[in-house]
């Protein structure tokens, strides 16, 4: 049963298949329960002459069988769903990143080359897309029913979602986590276009690449005053930091991933790099999440390590 719901992503078909199987299994059992109930009710109604000899008040075999049979069925369903679940959670290495910042009550989208949209998400057909999402304020949830994907968007951390669009067209996008007054109006459209159209559409933008925008912000916010190699202040040079292993002042080592960079900018005192004084000011209320993303893009572009952003572009151009 797909009812009227289009199957527009790589997940739609396997998820529907599992849903239908569940429908058959659970629907069958439920129907069975109803049928048995009616049958017994009619047969053993008061006044009927059904045979009531030899009734039992307990039977170990029966109890065990209806304990074990459902349990085994459950294990089967579980295995099937876990299989799909890991698929949902493991994006292929080359997936094209798109950054999303949710805000009461809109979706802000930023593509690899810096092109932005609001409340629409344009994606190419047949290309794995990975959404990297965060929220400026409260929790939202990014939901595309026709793709069968959904992921909460949480302030203070990055969550991700991936899919391959398999059908051209426009599909509704909903915010499905309650986020305040206009929660129901926080909707949008996902536009699936062909790869060529997508490339054309990207190029039509005059926006600077995110790393370049980030570089400007880096100067504008005064980061360069400390972090530029030539500055007089003792602060780590940021070249190559993304993806590297950083030792913190308390001896813990962490990998400098997206969340690390985010927190290093927004809540710097949470992770002080070993050997430095915790003098970096917090930019909590001064930089919004979109700018943090741009700064991160810049920092990533500094590194010798290949950043996923670049991989994404190559993938999309292929």
């Amino acid at each position, binding site marked *: 049963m797909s009812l009227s719901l289009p199957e527009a992503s790589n997940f739609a078909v396997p998820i529907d298949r599992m*849903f239908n199987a*569940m429908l058959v299994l659970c629907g069958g059992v439920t129907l069975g329960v109803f049928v048995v109930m009616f049958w017994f009710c009619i047969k053993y109604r008061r006044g009927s002459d059904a045979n009531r000899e030899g009734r039992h008040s307990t039977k170990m075999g029966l109890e065990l069988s209806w304990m074990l049979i459902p349990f085994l069925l459950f294990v089967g369903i579980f295995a099937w769903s876990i299989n799909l679940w890991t698929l949902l959670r493991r994006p292929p290495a080359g997936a094209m990143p798109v950054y999303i910042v949710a805000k009461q009550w809109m979706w802000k989208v930023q593509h690899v080359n810096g092109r932005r949209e609001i409340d629409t998400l344009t994606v190419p057909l047949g290309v794995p897309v990975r959404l990297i999402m965060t929220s400026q304020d409260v929790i939202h949830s990014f939901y595309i029913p026709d793709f069968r994907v959904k992921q*909460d968007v949480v302030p*203070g951390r990055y969550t991700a979602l991936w899919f391959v669009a398999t059908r051209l067209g426009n599909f509704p996008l909903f915010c499905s986590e309650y986020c305040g007054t206009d929660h129901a109006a926080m909707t949008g459209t996902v536009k699936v276009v062909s790869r060529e159209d997508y490339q054309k559409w990207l190029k039509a933008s005059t926006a600077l690449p995110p790393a370049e925008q980030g570089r400007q912000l880096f100067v504008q916010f005064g980061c360069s005053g400390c972090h530029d190699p030539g500055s007089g202040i003792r602060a780590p040079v940021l070249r190559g930091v993304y993806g590297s292993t950083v030792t913190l002042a308390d001896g813990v080592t962490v990998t400098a991933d997206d969340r690390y960079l985010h927190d290093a900018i927004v809540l710097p005192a949470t992770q002080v790099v070993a050997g430095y004084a915790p003098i970096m000011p917090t930019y909590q209320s001064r930089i919004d999440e979109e700018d943090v993303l741009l700064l991160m893009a810049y920092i990533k572009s500094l590194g010798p390590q290949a950043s996923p952003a670049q991989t994404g572009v190559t993938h999309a151009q292929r």
Partner: protein
Amino acid sequence: MNAAVTSADAESMGSGYLVEGGRTLWSWLSTRDHKRIGILYAVAITTFFFMGGVAATLIRLNLIYPDGRMLSAETYNKTFTFHGVVMVWFFLIPSIPATLGNFLLPLMIGARDMAFPRLNLFSWYLYMVGGLFTVAALLLGGVDTGWTFYTPYSTMFSNSNVILVVVGVFVVGFSSILTGLNLIVTTHMMRAPGMHWYRLPLFVWAMYATSVVMMLATPVLAMTLSLIGLERLAGVGIFDPALGGDPILFQHFFWFYSHPAVYIMILPAMGVVSELICNGVHRKIFGYKFMAWSMLSIAFIGFLVWGHHMFVAGQSMYAGIVFSILSFVVAVPSAIKVFNWLTTLHKGTIDFHAPMIYALGFIGLFTLGGMTGLFLAAVALDVNLTDTYFVVAHFHYIMVGGSVMAYLGGIHYWWPKVTGRMYSETIARIAAVLMFVGFNLTFFPQYILGYEGMPRRYHQYLPQFQDLNILSSIGACVLAISYLMPLFYLGHSLFRGEAAGPNPWQATGLEWTTSSPPPEHNFHETPVVTHGPYEYCD
């Protein structure tokens, strides 16, 4: 039926505990009699149910049109929040334990009262104070956080009366903790001679399992809500990402309480239904020990599955896997119960009195609701279904189709015991059937809506969802009528009903051995128990 009315009962007819403790309002408000406290609760809970029901009516009216033209977005959000908060904490959680449990548990185990009668009355006052706070919040403009109070919305963004409601729920939480404590101690300490554990009616087992959950889960809610309040007042920041806190931590705490809380709502219903089925079928329950232990295992495993509400909230993939399998495990004892009830019907002598109709309705709707719980527990499917109307339908099937049906069934079944009077069976049966029909009409379309992707807590929606929403709203009207009916015929029976006699249903169980209504201290002499609870002999 009232051929059995003996002279002793004629004497206590229209008297019993109802007048023995005094007739004044104060004699009720200061009573320590568990039966009177049960009635105090019943009155208060019914009031809250209809308040929640009015909110539900507004929700359904608003959703007739896709543009939600009746209520503003803000009002709509406040309406479903009020609906959820009232229905969960002020109606369903106390419904069976505090009314029927209070009234019946001492009777069923042959005790003169609860172990701590004063504490019992105190719990009722706590409940009322909590209710006052919540209603005050409504009058002062309402709260728009949803019943789940997710942070940081509830702490930093919502400018509504969150604190008042949080205090209200905190207070009512202590009321339910104290009720649970009282029920546990009473069951342990006050059983009549010969009433050993495996002679307890299943209703008592259900109360016991419920009370354990109440006592161990509710304090977590209380503290979590305190933190919300403190965060709003003092900017404590434990759940606020802007201050370094973690909003997901709040969800862990909230669901650590609220998942077990759903078993606070269903276990008592399972207990009631077991009693109704045995009486309707006139035979012993099938698999008594399995029935008792399955309830305890539901209560226990129920503490381990809270993460299934957070599959897409940002917890790790592995957490999702663990919580998924545990959610399936908790369904196994539910399966045991359904199949045992069905088998109890086998070779019985079935009467279709109104309580029995409610009980059968419960089995069907609980199964349907539970089955859809399995869809949600399968993580990969939950990704698509979570926070849609599929979830709304799932929990209304269990809570309204299941627990509320059982509660009403129980009210009908023990009505003659509580009041000493019979109600009109014919009308009661019509209402029960109407309820079943109206219920399915209201909530079945919501499964389809949810599958098609209509998110919950939406004040307006895409036009393609309108047909099913209209169907659902029509169903809600039918449902409303069927809920209003008992108010009238039960009310009528209070004054005009025939005398019931001690045991109108030819039931077993100690509560039926004393007069209806029972005397102030329950039994004229302490009963001595010599056999199990369901010794029907026809």
